[in-house]
Each structure stands twice: as structure tokens, then as C-alpha cells.
């Protein structure tokens, strides 16, 4: 799974544009997932007020930005958006992004732990014919 959490200074992709991949509006649907994101990116409530986004590099070498969302009445972050960082006018390969995000999910589930296991994620992925499961 080999997801690397990186800083903006460590990005290898230069002159990129953001391409929306997906949004999770209810990160606290199971709060262990929100806590895993908080721990991985060192977030505090202060980040909700103009804080920097997060970044990760997939095993493919492609890089992604994570926008941390805040919502009144919910613990921060209430959600995340994931954006692919694509060299300025290059085409986007959705399947390649899906492969990268699958590895991100494996990484995330491993960090959540407890009753949530990468084996259960892979088993679910196999039932639903996810090619990388």
C-alpha cells in the first residue's frame, strides 16, 4: 500500500492543476476514520481556519491533495475532498486514479484498525470486482 504523507515542499509534480476525484462529506459517519485522518495529518481544530491542505503520494508516484472540510456542529474535519495533482494540461486517467485511491483506502483502513481490517476491505472489493483488491 505504501502511501507516503508528504508536505507541499516535497511535491514532485510541478505546475499542476487540481482535478477533483471524490468527496467524503461525512468523515465522522464512523468516527475512527476521522480520528485516523486527524492523526495522519496532525490536524487540530485551528486548521479549520485557513489551514493548509494535506498531500500524499501513491505507490504509482502520482500525487494527491486532501482538502479538510469543516461544518458547524461537527468535529473537524467533517469531511475531505481528494484532488489529483495533474501536470498542467495533461489528460487524466480515471482508472489510474482509482488504483491510487484503492491503495489510499487500504492505508486508511489499516490506520483505523480495530474491527476494520484491510482483509475485510479486500474481501469487499473482490465481491464487487475492484481490480486491485
Amino acid at each position, binding site marked *: 500500500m505504501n502511501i507516503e504523507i508528504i508536505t507541499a515542499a516535497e511535491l514532485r509534480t510541478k505546475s499542476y492543476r487540481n482535478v477533483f476525484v471524490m468527496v*467524503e462529506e461525512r468523515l465522522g459517519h464512523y468516527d475512527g476514520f476521522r480520528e485516523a485522518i486527524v492523526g495522519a495529518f496532525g490536524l487540530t481544530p485551528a486548521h479549520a481556519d485557513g489551514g493548509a491542505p494535506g498531500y500524499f503520494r501513491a505507490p504509482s508516484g502520482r500525487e494527491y491533495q486532501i482538502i479538510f472540510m469543516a461544518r458547524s456542529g461537527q468535529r473537524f474535519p467533517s469531511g475531505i475532498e481528494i484532488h489529483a495533482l495533474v501536470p498542467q494540461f495533461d489528460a487524466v486517467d480515471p482508472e489510474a486514479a482509482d488504483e491510487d485511491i484503492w491503495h489510499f483506502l487500504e492505508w486508511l483502513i489499516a490506520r483505523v484498525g480495530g474491527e476494520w481490517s484491510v482483509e475485510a476491505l479486500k474481501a469487499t472489493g473482490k465481491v464487487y470486482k475492484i481490480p486491485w483488491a
Partner: protein
Amino acid sequence: MAKGSAFTSAPDLPPHIRQHFPFASRFIAVNGHRMHYVDEGEGDPVLLLHGNPTWSFLYRKFIPPIRAAGYRVIVPDHIGFGLSEHPAREHDFSLENHIANLAEFVRRLDLKRLTVVCQDWGGPMGLSCAVLDPASFKALVVMNTWAWPEPSTFHSSIFPWRMMHAPVVAPYLFQRRNVLVERGLYLSVVHRERFIEEALPAYRFVMPDYDSRLLTRVFPRLIPLGHDDRSAATMRWLEKSLGQTNIPALIVWGREEIVFPAGCAERFKKLLPHARGPLWVTGSHFLQEDSPQEICGHILEFLREIDRESQP
């Protein structure tokens, strides 16, 4: 009886789908959302309610025989499904909003002596409308659904159901990979080859992209797993209210159903002791795809019995 503005056809449906769904599309605004529905025939109305991730296409083989038997057949697409509006914000959706949308739909069409036929999420929505205004309802037909806060073991297990709608996993599986349409439907019918050839293209067609699939992941999260979860209070209210009704009811269940297993049919029988059934038909979760003629036969026989009993 009021009907919404009529279109002779939904022009976006390609011929290979239209040949199985030769019904006029109608549209009506409910609570600010555009809702698509089919409205065929004359007589006492029969409202056919789908769940996740289907649309009125699911009932394509129910409409002609029920219409031919002298009933008005009405089949809406819930907001977020089929040819209805597909809002793109998760926070727009709650079970209570869906119930309110359906209740407004029933009011706008001024439906009386109404029979509701419901499956999956059509159950909590349709049955809620019935207990809100029991005087307008003639009968209930309950199929592969639930009406209480506790989920089935299928819904409470991490593999695969809770994993599917877990944070971050859900938008990936349901929206980017469209797994409920591409795989879930197939796994939840008995006659799979027929389903792939005849029906799968229609379910794919109405969910072509990421935003259009939002509701397929929102609905699983509305199933309460704990006492304080969203929807739990509404489901408790529904169970209590339904237990106090005496609307004639029929329970039809799929023999191969695993999402709401046989115990759910028995629980409906305890909740509605006056109900006919459960009648068991060949069918997995989407039993309308598997046994439409047999189910329609049961529904029409049931309605004929009610009509006979209500005659002076």
C-alpha cells in the same frame, strides 16, 4: 384526479431501454425537486415504490397487468433516482425528507383509496405515508423491506455492507466504481442472465456519472445501526404507528432474499397480524425482476378480495 404535466416519452431513453419501458413520463415538483413518475390507467390507484439503486423501470412488468385489471398505476422515481432530479449534496438527504417528498407527491396527485406496493427503501417511505394518512390508504403490499430501527444481520456486518458505506470507502465504491449498479443488482437477482440482457442497461443509464450516483451511498448510511443514529427515531415511530393500523395488508417475500431474510417477513406478520401471507415467491432482493407475473397475480387476487369485502 390531478396529473402532472405529461411528456409522451422521456426523450433521453434509448430504444433498447424504451422497448421495455413504453410508458409516458410525467414530472411534478415536490418540495422544490423535480420528480419523475409513470401514471397509467384509471381506477383506484396503486402506488409502486422502488428502493436503492433502482427506479420505476423495476416495475415495468407490473404496470400492464395491474392497469388491465382496472387500476390506476403510479410509479414514482424517488428524488436522486431514475429520471427524477439527482441533487449532489449528501446533507440534502434524510429519511424524513424522502418521506416528506413522497407524502407531498401523494397529496399533489390527490390520491385516495390508495394501495401502496413497496420494497427496500420504498417500505419505510410508503408505509410512513400510510400511517400519516391512513384514511387515504386502501391496502399495503410489503415486499423485502423493513419498518423498525434494528437492521438485519446483513446491515450490521462489516463485511461487506458496513465496509461499503464507511467514510471515504463509500464515495469510492458507490460513486466512482458504481458497485451497487454494476455488481450489487446482479448479485441480488435469481435470473441473472435475463437481468443482464434486459434490465442492467436501464439501471446504468440513469446513473452515468459520479454525481448522479450520490443517493446509492447516502441511503445505506440512513439505516440506523444504533439507538441514536439518524433515522432511528423515525423508524421507531414507524414501527409503533404501523402496529396500530388496521389497513388491509399482504406480505410477499423472496425465497432467496438475504438482505431482509425470512425473519423480517415473520416480523411484519407479528406487526400486522391481520395481513395475508407471507407468500413466498422465487426472488432475491429485487424480486420484482425475478417473479413479476406471480407477484402481480398475488396483488390482484388480494385487491379483488378487499374490493369484495368492502362491497355492501
